[in-house]
């Protein structure tokens, strides 16, 4: 370990020095993570999906068909050099649609995760740290939500709100947040009696600051792991809801919807459902691989 010069007032050290510990810690975690070949594969797949999603208009062979324009002249064509994944019942290039379709799960899952974290984490922290009737109230509300199977509840909510991707996102947020609230609440309850939290109390640090600075940051590890494991499920549920007609509306290029549209032709024109199905499979697999890898790095229980 190199010795650092005593900081002199006025030249207090760069941002880099002040956050040296965090830098080194993340570098170490990254090194452990990168040793995990499967997780690395997952990262590559997700990165590829993101690149494809962003660059869709430029790399898709038929961008307007990808967005939904039909082309009745070339209906149900088998994979060929012009259409590597074939074309669907409206004559649209399946490859272009799969490429454009990458945008939807990425977008929705990030929105859902962000919203769930914004609602669930602070609520769990408050319930767990403050306790008493607030805790009771929050926990009973989560109990109500958790009493329904998540997918059924989401379906009911979308059916009530009307089918659209926006409503799918809302429904997923409503069904997911209680899990995070409970997770964080459990962590907060155990952190409440930690000596460093007690010490902060004796210093006169306010409740909110304690929750923000001492409780939530230390409860975040398991949350990150949970998020990474849940993203795949969110993607799957978006596709599932679209498949049964509760999510994306035609002609949106949504993978679940595309699988559903190819249903009638599955025996003869297999490519219409297969390629979007494969895309779902790969993305979800990638998310789970990354999630497992992250858990090994962040969750002390699985540390060797």
């Amino acid at each position, binding site marked *: 370990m190199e010795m*650092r010069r*005593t900081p002199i*007032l*006025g030249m207090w050290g760069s941002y880099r020095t002040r956050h*040296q*510990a965090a830098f080194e810690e993340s570098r170490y975690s990254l090194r452990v993570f990168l040793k995990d070949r499967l997780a690395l594969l997952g990262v590559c797949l997700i990165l590829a999906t993101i690149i494809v999603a962003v660059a869709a208009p430029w790399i898709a062979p038929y961008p307007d068909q990808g967005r939904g324009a039909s082309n009745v002249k070339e209906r149900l064509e088998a994979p060929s050099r012009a259409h590597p994944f074939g074309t669907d019942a409206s004559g649209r290039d399946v490859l272009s649609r799969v490429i454009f379709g990458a945008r939807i799960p990425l977008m929705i899952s990030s929105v859902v995760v962000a919203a769930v974290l914004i609602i669930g984490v602070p609520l769990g922290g408050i319930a767990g740290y403050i306790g008493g009737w607030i805790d009771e109230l929050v926990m009973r509300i989560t109990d109500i939500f958790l009493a329904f199977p998540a997918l059924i509840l989401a379906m009911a909510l979308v059916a009530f709100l009307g089918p659209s991707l926006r409503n799918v996102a809302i429904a997923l947020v409503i069904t997911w947040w209680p899990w995070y609230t409970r997770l964080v609440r459990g962590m907060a309850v155990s952190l409440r009696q930690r000596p460093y939290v007690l010490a902060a109390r004796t*210093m006169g640090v306010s409740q909110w600051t304690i929750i923000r*600075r001492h409780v939530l940051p*230390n409860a975040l590890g398991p949350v990150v792991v949970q998020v990474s494991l849940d993203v795949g499920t969110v993607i799957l549920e978006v596709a599932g809801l679209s498949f049964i007609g509760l999510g994306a509306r035609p002609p949106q290029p949504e993978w679940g919807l595309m699988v559903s549209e190819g249903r009638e032709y599955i025996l003869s024109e297999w490519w219409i459902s297969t390629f979007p199905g494969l895309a779902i499979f790969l993305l979800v697999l990638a998310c789970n691989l990354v999630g497992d890898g992250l858990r090994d790095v962040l969750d002390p229980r699985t540390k060797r």
Partner: protein
Amino acid sequence: MPLLSVSDLTVHFNIRRGLTRRSIDVVHAADEVSFSLERGGTLALVGESGSGKTTVAHAILGLNKPQAGSIVFRDRDLLCLPKRERRAARRGMQVVFQDPYSSLNPRMTVHDLVAEPLRVGSRMQGDELRERVLELLEMVGLGTQHLWRRPHEFSGGQCQRIAIARALALSPDLVVLDEPTSALDVSVQARILTLLHRLQRELTLSYLFIAHDLAVVESVASQVAVMYLGTIVESGPTEVIFNDARHPYTLALLASVPSPDPEHRSEGAALSGDVPSAIHPPGGCRFHPRCAFRMDVCEREAPPLVDRRGRRLACHLPDSFDLSAEQEVARLARATTTVEEPGRRPSARPRPTTEVPPKTRRRW
């Protein structure tokens, strides 16, 4: 006026069960505990686990709610003050906990840890804050080159220094030391104890020292209060308690310290059995089921804590009762091992350690 005086402090915890959170049992964690601490003095609260010493410390620090009693700190009763003033008054007392790692937030750097009380308590900022943080770290003997490192990169002793620096940030009058060295190795413990001693002298601090290690207590405390099952059984000046203990429990506790002198092995375990549950403490004197000298009255009446023979004592045994045999056992248990330089040593046999040399030492 003493800096801190606690009187008749009673802390009960309700054990709640079920949906309605009704109380099914009461833990008598501390019952009518009274003591006082002079400015610049060190009072040690001694006892085994379940004795209520930590409960008392937490009550003083405002980490639990006492049922009754008063805590007068700097002439103000903390339990009667409005919330805001109480919080301000409590800035004058800080705490150092036992486990140096878990008492520091693992995600904060040394600088942030020490700066936190300054930001909160005195709203310090900028250069003033930086200067104070550096000053505090220097005070506890930590180099500033590790300012931006996190607790897990330090040894236990270094972490305890960080915790001490943090406790001193707001220039408190009283520092509650909750087993500050029991998680540390002896050589590290010695350094922390000398540091605490130096700080006390330089800053005129008062210490409330919670400990179970009597050897440490003897070397740091000016006053000792021995607790058993939520009550104080004997309290007084350290010399009196250690050399002339009168309560059977104090004697047993003293005799249980394993002496580092192999030539004075204690004969048998001084006490049999376990500490009873604090949910249904024994009636009368709480120590009577384990006491070797119990009398009928001990089962019926709880002895009051009264001034007797230069200390406060809660025991039914009369002053005339002969405890010298037990006191001798307790004294032997404190026999020390003396290491002398081989060059200076005239003979192979070290001097006998049975007699306790008259001590006139300066205390903390």
